[in-house]
């Protein structure tokens, strides 16, 4: 009887351990992303971070060779519009991440001939499709909340100021009604 009772307690302990392990495994990305999203500043606004150094503590493993611009988005009030100037003399990309850390969209400077980016991000439960045009890309986020990240490579330290000025032209905000 004692052995059977001991086995039952062991089994229940292991069952709890398995549930906690699986639950924490799935919760971790969401919690980490939500923390980063909360720390990045105002929603639907582009934030241009300083060049990463040893004092950069918001996102792990930053590259000191890239300039990062971030826009934490919340599509509950409508689509987001991201505008940027695309440099074609260095690596540049715009990427989007859902609230579970997945990189669901990326476009780099070699994948477009345009010098300007006009990207509209729609909510997964949008009720009116925004029309794409020759100059406007329209994509649908898998989640209402997420993050836009623009990377610009500093391919020449002597050109840092010019590269920084160009990437600071990037903006994001709610798409004006009627557009």
């Amino acid at each position, binding site marked *: 009887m004692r052995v059977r009772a001991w086995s039952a307690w062991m089994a229940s302990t292991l069952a709890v351990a398995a549930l906690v392990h699986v639950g924490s495994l799935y919760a971790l*990305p969401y919690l980490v992303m939500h923390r980063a999203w909360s720390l990045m500043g105002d929603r639907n606004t582009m934030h241009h971070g300083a060049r*990463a150094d040893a004092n950069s503590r918001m996102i792990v*493993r930053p590259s000191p060779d890239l300039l990062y611009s971030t826009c934490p988005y919340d599509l509950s009030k409508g689509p987001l519009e991201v505008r940027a100037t695309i440099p074609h003399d260095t690596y540049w990309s715009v990427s989007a991440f*859902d609230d579970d850390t*997945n990189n669901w969209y*990326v476009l780099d400077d070699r994948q477009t001939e345009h010098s300007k980016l006009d990207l509209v991000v729609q909510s997964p439960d949008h009720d009116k499709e925004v029309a794409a045009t020759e100059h406007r890309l329209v994509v649908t986020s898998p989640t209402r909340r997420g993050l836009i990240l623009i990377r610009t490579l500093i391919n020449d330290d002597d050109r840092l100021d010019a590269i920084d000025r160009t990437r600071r032209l990037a903006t994001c905000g709610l798409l004006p009604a009627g557009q």
Partner: protein
Amino acid sequence: MKFAPKLAVSAIAGVALGLFATWATVIHGPGPDALADGPWRTSLTIGSAKSGPYTRASVAIHGLLALNRSETIYYTAFTDSSGAALDGACTYDIVGHDPDARWWSITAYGADDYLIPNPVDRYSISKNSVLRASDGSFSASVGSAAHVQNWIPTTREPFSLTLRLYNPGASVQSEPAQASLPVIVKEACS
């Protein structure tokens, strides 16, 4: 022991065990689908919605906002090419040729996954900054002993190196475990 205290002990032990398993497998362990190319490790599903829960959780902790492999392949080394753990008390040479990518960099990170403080604010070598020999090869030093060029400073703490390949070439994309990547050779320890 009565039923209620037994239940509490069982629940507490289960929670502790479950959290330890997460810590051991994700926070303090490599991803289960990692590929190795010498000392360099990568995963084919970094950044992808197809990644499993272990890889996704590991990326959230150690590489949040990583791009998917079509855009960038990230390799990380926690050991040198002989398999010994990277140690800040030692100096290393990174020797090789440019990897097959539009742009690459190798950056040192402390055990906390952040850039390592150093007096010259230098954290990486890259395709743009590395100085090469006449045959195109390069050799860079990693350690606390100062060098004028091709130097990634570290402190005496454990560290790791991340190799980023932006717009990786077709050969790296198709066979990331067979890519021609730099070797990491231990030179001396103090």
